[in-house]
């Protein structure tokens, strides 16, 4: 079964970090995930640019309206995602709790990926 790990960070905290510091955190996370690729557990993932670059599209009075910024102003913002193939939730949670990004203070939301049409 596949799960998506949604990675959240406080961008204000992230902005305080130096470029080498950001690079170090990214590299650790990259290595951590890649180590699980050969077994088929890690299926891929990508980092996202900060929410300052986001555009949100929604319907308003029958028209598609574009707004500058993320879907919602929140304390933590979506920073990237990871897709894994796991036996059950516990396997994913064990991976997430030891994740270098969690150790670096980020949060990970685990969501099962739906199979088939909506129920």
């Amino acid at each position: 079964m596949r799960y998506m790990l949604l990675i959240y960070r406080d961008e204000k905290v992230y902005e305080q970090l130096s470029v080498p510091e950001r690079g170090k955190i990214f590299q650790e996370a990259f290595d951590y995930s890649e180590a699980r690729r050969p077994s088929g557990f890690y299926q891929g993932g990508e980092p996202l640019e900060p929410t300052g670059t986001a555009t949100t599209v929604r319907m308003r009075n029958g028209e598609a309206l574009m707004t500058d910024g993320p879907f919602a102003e929140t304390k933590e913002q979506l920073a990237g995602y990871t897709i894994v193939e796991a036996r059950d939730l516990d396997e994913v949670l064990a991976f997430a709790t030891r994740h270098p990004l969690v150790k670096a203070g980020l949060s990970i939301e685990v969501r099962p990926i739906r199979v088939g049409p909506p129920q």
Partner: protein
Amino acid sequence: MGIEEIFRADYGRILATLIRLLGDIDVAEEALQEAFAAALEQWPAAGIPANPVSWLVSTGRHKAIDRLRRRAWLEEKQDEIARHIELSTHQLDLQSADDEETPVPEDRLRLIFTCCHPALATEAQVALTLRTLGGLSTEEIARAFLVPAPTMAQRLVRAKAKIRTARIPYEVPPTEALAERLEAAMVVVYLVFNEGYTASFGARLVRNELCEQAIRLGRMLVELLPIHAEPKGLLALMLLHDSRRETRLDASGDLVLLEDQDRTRWDRAQIDEGAALVEAALSEGGRPPGPYALQAAIAALHAQAATAAATDWQQIAALYGVLARVHPTPVVELNRAVAVAMSSGLERGLALLDTLDGDGGLAGYHLLSAARAELLRRLGRHAEAVESYRQALALVSNEAERKHLEKRLREVTS
């Protein structure tokens, strides 16, 4: 044993086995209901089978497979479900059905770890545990927690949907995770107990039922995880508290303090069982005792004192000292201060309370003011005691405790 008794005593055991066989809590619950309905229909005429639990498991399983077959046919989702049935009949061929359908202790252990999974909200963990292992109806659980029945039903539906959709496993956690997960399960069991024991609202009957359920779950953990010490400590703690249940409130529902309780009405059998479990939990070699075992040891000293005056406060203060190291919380410190006051002098206890007050961790906690008021009263410093009783009264929310504090306040002002 009648059908009613079997339902009450073996609900969790039968359901846990059906979940293993059918792979889904909802399907298993439905199967169990159908099996009991069939029993009500057949047993009065045919007599109770030699092994009623196996009969119910087997009947429930067949009913569920029939229903899945019918549903598959109706929905023409044949391939998926047919494969499921093929698999289960295949399994039937491989090992004899009898073997597979025999409830094994691990079934209930798997179920409690699923219900108490940290990915579920604590209130959902509690509700699910009582529903599946305790066999309580949604209405009974709703009444016990003062929640409207539809809200509780919704809570259970959501929790079960999450277990299914996010695939929370139905298994005993691996060794490296077991201690942490066991801790979470024990928190749920103790929460159920405390809800039954300390809450001042709700019908007495419902509350007693919660205490009994918690003790039953505690027994299950002790029985299924015999090498672990803390479940023994937890069960002992609950038995020892529960032994005093009848004497905690007087005829008019007012709180009776430990020292004023009628000790002849304490349940001796429960105290003996609790004390023996404390011994077992403390003597388990190698590891230092855990918080449940230590609290149970303290409860045992209270329960075994022939009179309030004979209480071994010295030993209790020492145990609180150990507890404060393994489980450092302001409430433990507060209890330690009281034990020190009783064993080494009221003034010393009062001094400890003052340092606690300065730390601020208990700001707004009525029992800190109440404890200070009590010590001041015993010291004869009535004016200061009045002040502290008033502070405690401003913070207390439990009705029985309020009445007690008001009574004390009247005593020191007159």
